[in-house]
């Protein structure tokens, strides 16, 4: 499967500070890629780089086969973008915004746009400045979907929306993706929401991608082990040790990825005893990944 988005060793800085450092990521074509990370981790900056709104200091970015930001107009013609905050002209009405947007996209589907407008209960004459947060989110989603994009880039599309609006927005998204087999990059810090709709996941923290894998691997891959009597220095393990922290006496808690029950023999060979294996849900896995990546990663 080819990649709809491919970043290689991308670096970007705000002033003297690096916001993104050596970032490589791949979003497979047709995937719904959940882009997870805490606030300020660099998700929005990465999205702006992907869309060609910022120029990387180093590295290369390819989106739908186009080099960014050089070929941004060609790529953007096939991308639907919903930003974190309302970006539309506040003094225009819903109808005017739809007509303005339509003028830039040859692929605009007027029938679908009208259907979505009715489905989202948006009135033609409503001023953008008077729209509620939920209505703004729906309007941005409408504009993104009506251009029939091959790639949807959604930056925290449901952040701050009430559950009913969130459901409306997500169901319109899922309906579109299943009908068109489009690729979606959706950034969020709402882990459970990503779990429901995404089949790939990338976790970003402090400007670095700390994990990228299929959702099923992420969901089942991270576990917490209670281990007793492990030596301070360990040889290469058949699993990834994300981190270890003392609990009481000789007992420690380990965060691990790629753990299989038969690997217990490796532990015993090191003179350690496995006391308990704890399955983590997605949110706990996410937190564990962040915690271990911040404390220095694999050890």
């Amino acid at each position, binding site marked *: 499967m080819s990649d709809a988005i491919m970043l290689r060793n991308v670096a970007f800085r705000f002033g003297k500070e690096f916001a993104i450092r050596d970032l490589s990521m791949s979003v497979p074509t047709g995937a719904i890629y959940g882009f997870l990370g805490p606030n300020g981790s660099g998700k929005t900056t990465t999205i702006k780089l992907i*869309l*060609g*709104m910022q120029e990387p200091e180093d590295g290369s970015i390819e989106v739908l086969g186009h080099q960014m930001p050089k070929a*941004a*107009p*060609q*790529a*953007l*013609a096939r*991308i639907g*973008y919903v*930003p974190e*905050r*309302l*970006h*539309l*002209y*506040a*003094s*225009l009405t819903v109808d*005017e915004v739809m*007509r*303005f947007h*339509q*003028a*830039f*996209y040859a692929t605009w589907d007027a029938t679908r746009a009208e259907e979505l407008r009715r489905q989202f209960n948006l009135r033609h004459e409503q001023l953008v400045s008077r729209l509620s947060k939920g209505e703004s989110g729906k309007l941005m989603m409408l504009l993104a979907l009506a251009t029939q994009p091959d790639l949807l880039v959604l930056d925290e599309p449901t952040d701050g929306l009430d559950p009913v609006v969130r459901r409306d927005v997500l169901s319109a998204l899922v309906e579109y993706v299943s009908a068109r087999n489009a690729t979606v990059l959706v950034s969020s810090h709402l882990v459970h929401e990503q779990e429901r709709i995404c089949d790939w996941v990338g976790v970003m923290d402090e400007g670095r991608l700390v994990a990228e894998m299929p959702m099923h691997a992420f969901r089942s891959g991270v576990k917490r082990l209670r281990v007793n009597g492990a030596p301070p220095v360990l040889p290469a393990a058949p699993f990834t040790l994300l981190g270890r922290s003392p609990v009481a006496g000789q007992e420690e808690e380990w965060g691990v990825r790629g753990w299989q029950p038969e690997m217990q023999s490796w532990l015993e060979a090191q003179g350690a005893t496995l006391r308990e294996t704890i399955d983590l849900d997605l949110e706990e896995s996410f937190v564990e990944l962040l915690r271990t990546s911040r404390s220095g990663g694999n050890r």
Partner: protein
Amino acid sequence: MFRAILYTQWKWARPVLFLAIIAAGWIPLEALRSSPYKELGTYHVPSLYASIAAAGSAYQYLALAVAVVLSISAWQADSARQHVYALSLPIPRWRFVLLRFGAGALLLGIAATAVGLFGGIAAALAPLPPSLHAYPVGLAIRFWLGTLIPFGLIFALLCSSPRRVKIVVAAVVTVIAVDMALAGFGVTDGPQLINWVLRPLYESGSPLTAFLSRWMLVDV
């Protein structure tokens, strides 16, 4: 695409354009009304000439005001959202800027047309002395070109990044502050620094010379 961009700028600028059109009608009428008639029913040439010259200054102020407001309104909505919407549209940045400039130039043309039209009407209704002639078309073209210059300068500044805008504004404020301080402490007689900075803009062949020449609806 151009129509869509023109529509947004029309929507943002139309209150100012309406005011400009009213002013374009009022200026020549007021100039002619305030000039005394001679007994034979024609104008007293020197006072009419003075009155028309004063109206010329009013046209200059009008041109400057319209240009400033239209250039600000062209980018205000984009600046308020850090240009995110414009940058996410599938169009090269230079082309978007060009379309916005073209739309602004066209809207300035509406104000210039009003200047020519009302100037022409006022001149046609007034019994001008034989030695004087009305030049409404010339005035309209001068008005339009005159508005394009400050429009272009401010437009170029505002379509840039907020950081660059801040740098330029900070530089201007610094020059004014230093100049005032020097004058305040008696180091200079007046605003020397500002004159030194602005002089190249007004010198012969530079962009703002149009504002120094006389904008006459009626001339010899």
